[in-house]
């Protein structure tokens, strides 16, 4: 390894067997390939592909566990048709859309704000950056409990602080009103995500050449103009990808809803994901839940295709 290696290409020593139009010789063995890949593929097949197929089949059957443990007759597309006349389902779509909009936009704004404040590597800022990973690592269940505790109108520390700053909010039941409950759930999630986004943005801002911002400053640009005209456009690809990532996570969010509101008040925080859970494991209506979960899969597939495509484009 110490000897200089002349002209080594990615596929092996060049010029040994390479001919134009032919793949370079590989020393990699085909049988080892499948021995190494096989176990992982078998497990993915069992744990992901099998349930996808099983759900798909049961989405066309009537199957209520209260009546019988065994699946009932096939009912065609009745389960899917039922969804589109079910007010609960339609409501959950709207709640999911609102939740995604609120949580994604707030995470981006807060993440950008944190990144801009911490972008200079002063000792205080570097120390602060180290702390940014901690909220994300906290179990979502604990995030839910922690925010529910702090927002309690009688003894919650955040509720009291907010009441002290805006006296009309004193004693406000944050989890008892439609929009504020949604916002509270969003914040318990944003608390983890925004600092992490900030770290990504700081990394991306660091790769912006200093000359371009210096030149703009010499020409008399204000900080806001530099942000608007230089930083933001250069951050746009990063913003796009993290926004997609956040949309996916907001769509699948379950733990904090279960802990903080249980879908309430009324059904104002009942997202599509939570609704499917309710139908499957509270109402035990497996046929209908399977159909609903397939609608979820289709929506997720669309979003994640955008995400994966963008990722692979970078390769």
């Amino acid at each position, binding site marked *: 390894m110490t000897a200089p290696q002349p002209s080594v290409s990615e596929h092996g020593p060049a010029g040994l067997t390479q001919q134009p139009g032919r793949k370079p010789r590989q020393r990699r063995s085909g049988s080892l390939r499948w021995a190494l890949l096989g176990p992982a593929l078998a497990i993915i097949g069992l744990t992901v592909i099998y349930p996808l197929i099983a759900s798909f089949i049961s989405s066309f059957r009537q199957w209520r566990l209260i009546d019988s443990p065994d699946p009932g007759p096939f009912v065609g597309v009745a389960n899917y048709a039922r969804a589109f006349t079910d007010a609960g389902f339609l409501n959950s779509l709207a709640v999911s859309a609102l939740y995604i909009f609120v949580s994604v936009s707030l995470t981006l704004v807060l993440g950008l704000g944190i990144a801009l404040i911490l972008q200079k590597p002063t000792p205080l800022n570097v120390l602060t950056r180290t702390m940014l990973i901690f909220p994300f690592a906290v179990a979502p269940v604990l995030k839910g409990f*922690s925010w529910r505790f702090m927002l309690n109108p009688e003894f919650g520390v955040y509720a009291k602080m907010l009441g002290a700053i805006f006296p009309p909010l004193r004693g406000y039941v944050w989890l008892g009103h439609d929009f504020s409950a949604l916002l509270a759930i969003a914040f318990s999630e944003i608390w983890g995500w925004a600092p992490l986004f900030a770290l990504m943005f700081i990394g991306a801002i660091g790769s912006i050449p200093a000359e371009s911002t210096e030149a703009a400053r010499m020409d008399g640009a204000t900080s806001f103009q530099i942000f608007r005209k230089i930083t933001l456009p250069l951050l746009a690809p990063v913003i796009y990808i993290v926004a997609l990532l956040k949309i996916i996570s907001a769509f699948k969010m379950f733990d904090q809803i279960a802990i903080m509101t249980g879908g309430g008040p009324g059904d104002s925080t009942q997202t599509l994901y939570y609704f499917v859970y309710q139908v499957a*494991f509270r109402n035990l209506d497996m046929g209908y839940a399977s159909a609903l979960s397939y609608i979820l899969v289709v929506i997720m597939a669309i979003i994640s295709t955008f995400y994966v495509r963008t990722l692979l484009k970078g390769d």
Partner: protein
Amino acid sequence: MRGDLVAELPPLPRRPAPLSRRLAQGAEVFGALAIIFFVMFPLVWMLLGAFKNEIDIYSTKLFFQATLDNFRAVFASPVLLGGRIWISALVSFLTVAITIPLGAAAAYVLSRHRFRGRNTLFLLILITQFVPAVVVAIPFFNLFRAAHLIDTPLALVIVYLSFTLPYAIWLLRGFFDALPVEIEEASYIDGCNEFQTLRFVTVPLVLPGILVAAVFTFISAWNEFFFALILTRSESLTLPVAILGISGPRGPMWEQLSAAGMIVMVPILVMSFFIRKYFVEGITVGAVK
């Protein structure tokens, strides 16, 4: 002496930085402190709560008589947190022990071998990562019920593999890709076959990446709530589900919940601190380069 020859002038007063600069600096410090507050306060508040008694927990005071009673209470009946820690650790370690070797083997092939369908296969594995847990949960709930596997650690490990394995393959492939292929070529020239090269050259070199993947896998299994809620009843409750039981007639017993929360959280925070440099990459898996 020198003062006799050249008159000693009083030092020039240092001109203060312009007010706008000082204001900006002050604002930056204030901003950083506000961020520290936003990020750390909920953690600190839970830490304080864990040491408050059942009366102080309902006040917002910062100074109080600290007590360890809450930690004693959660390890006693009915929560018996000791057994829950054991189950959570068992499930998380088993998940890591299966995910990492299989994931690394698959990631190696997807990084180094060139064969037809490789990119399609990788794309499929990427996409399985986004299959919502609830879709996986419905068939497995019914399968495990028929097989009497509900409320066993094995059931949890099986469903956890549905998200840890695709994720680990994705993350580990990045680490293999980052390793220059020339190093392996040198080993082939020295006469090693592929397996020997993998065993003695490639794997040792990507070991840091493998450790990072192991920690992320452990964290996601340890923190997992949704599957554990559905697939456990009493024997195999993991920590995140067990703490739901910390409630009295007036709802959650926040002081004990905080103590249990610290036990769930602290090991994870320590691990996160050690792999902090990989955190962004671990979450986005190469999304942001």
